[in-house]
């Protein structure tokens, strides 16, 4: 069994909030002027991850199926004179990089994942296998526009970030564990986010052959 203690957890469900409202709500978390080139997903993920104060020896595991959807859409719209800024911003791990570059904060391990039905499992497995004393598992999605019409974007906007440690501490929020199990099942990243956001206890299949146990204090 792979198990870690959840030291801290921050979640943000933008639900039906307009992107402009989300940006206005979150801009106070970042230095003045820093948000001008940040994406909405970058502000959401950065807002959650930033509160964990990531450091050089932390490992960061990032899970997002579609990542920078809006920057991607805008970059595609910029052809035939493609925008270099949007090209940079549209790369998959950009949301985390926006925070970390803004803080000029290096990190040894950064493991960005994409994925579909098993993304939560793959992000968790990576997070529970890092040798770092503290692993920061974060993720999120932002709602697309025309890419969503083609099934190539998330219909929801949300983000989460949690700090995981080997050893228990008095202020822990809970525990998270993966164990082998012959059962079938899957848990998408949005469903995993809902468990975290509502602090829901869970004992069920997260992938074929793998059970997730999520317990809260």
């Amino acid at each position, binding site marked *: 069994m*792979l198990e870690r203690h959840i030291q801290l957890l921050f979640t943000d469900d933008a639900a039906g909030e307009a992107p402009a409202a989300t940006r206005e709500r979150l801009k106070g978390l970042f230095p003045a002027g820093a948000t001008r080139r940040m994406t909405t997903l970058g502000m959401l993920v950065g807002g959650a991850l930033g509160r964990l104060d990531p450091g050089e020896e932390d490992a960061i595991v990032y899970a997002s*199926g*579609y990542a920078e959807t809006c920057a*991607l859409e805008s*970059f*595609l*719209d910029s*052809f*035939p*004179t*493609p*925008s*270099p800024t949007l*090209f*940079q*911003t549209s*790369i*998959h*791990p*950009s949301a985390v*990089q926006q925070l*970390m*570059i803004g*803080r*000029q*904060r*290096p*990190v*040894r*391990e*950064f*493991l*960005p*994942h*994409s*994925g*579909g*039905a*098993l*993304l939560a499992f*793959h992000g968790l*497995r*990576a997070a*529970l*296998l*890092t040798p770092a004393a503290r692993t920061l598992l974060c993720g999120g999605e932002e709602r697309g526009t025309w*890419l969503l019409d*083609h*099934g*190539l*974007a998330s219909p929801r906007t949300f983000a989460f970030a949690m700090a995981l440690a080997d050893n228990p501490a008095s202020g822990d929020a809970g525990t998270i564990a993966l164990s*082998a199990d012959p059962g079938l099942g*899957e848990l998408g990243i949005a469903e995993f986010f809902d468990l975290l956001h509502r602090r829901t206890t869970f004992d069920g299949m997260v*992938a*074929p*052959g*793998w059970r997730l146990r999520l317990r809260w204090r």
Partner: protein
Amino acid sequence: MAGSPDPIRVAACGCVTPLGDAAATHAALLRGETALRLAEVLGRTGGDRVPLGLLDGRSLDETAPPAWLPALRTLNASIPAGDWGSPGRPVFVTGSNFGVGGLYALRTTGDPKFAVWGAPPTCTEMLRLELGWGPDVSILTHACVSAHLGLLQATRVIQAGLADEALVLSFDFLSPFVTGGFHSLKILNSGFPEPYRERGTGSIGLGDGAGFAVLSRGRGEWLISGQSLYNEMHHFTSNRGDGLGFARCLEGAARAAEGRRVWFKGHGTGTLDAGRMEIAAAVRAFPGAPVVGWKGGLGHTLGSCGLVELAVAIEAVRRGRAPGTHGGSGEAMSDAVSTGVLDTGAFDGVVCASNAFGGAHAAFLLCDA
């Protein structure tokens, strides 16, 4: 966690480039051939002519299904058979592009037939069904160090006792999306790449490429060790001026290589500052090691370069001859840069390094088992 100190082996490895499979690519590089040709940066839309390496007969313009799919089918045929994607035999798919050319085609034509291969989750699911894999298929994408992340995750899954073997597959095929993006950054220009050469303006070339490796606990001729990463988080596209990220990343591979005589297969895209910093870090970490870079012949195969060039490096060690640095004839950035063919029999290991946007760095040591 059921940790294991067992060394991880490369049980099988291969690649496909415009120069052919690993053996053909290795042979072509030894002959000094290049896959790069000048082509319009936006395909049929036109634009400046830039050095691109496209698979034989493939256009930069996207088709549905993708014209690169047969190349992946051919590569897949050389992967040892197994129930890949089952709980005990996971697959790690890596890359930086996936089917993003489909998104460009979707946007420019409006034809929904291009959509399904367009995003990493949908593209990988199509590939999973195409290649008959089970559901345990992870996707790692971190620009040009993506393949290294797949190798690292595969290693960890095996070392933790969660699998005996794992497959890492990486692919990047060019499209106007990525060529237009790099051209907008001005590093993909009309010049051919001259890695580790002093010149007035840096230039890169981009190339199609895919590779795979089967990592195993118990079988394989090659040991992979010293896998290390470092992310500067300094700037989206450039590195810190002091080269710290290059140096910090190589610490792990240098520890693994202690007591060995190694050669260094660098990243070497053809950009100037990064080339100088990479060489300086390699010389400090591996004194006396000759440095080679092959992107002058292959082009930069982006997120897949770590696996494509691993396959070529393995072929080089098998044959006893490693191609020298490709591209240009001007002054090298260091005496360590090797432009001639290396006799790999004089060494007992090769360090393979890659670098990426965001000041991301990755490296590992490959040795005979």
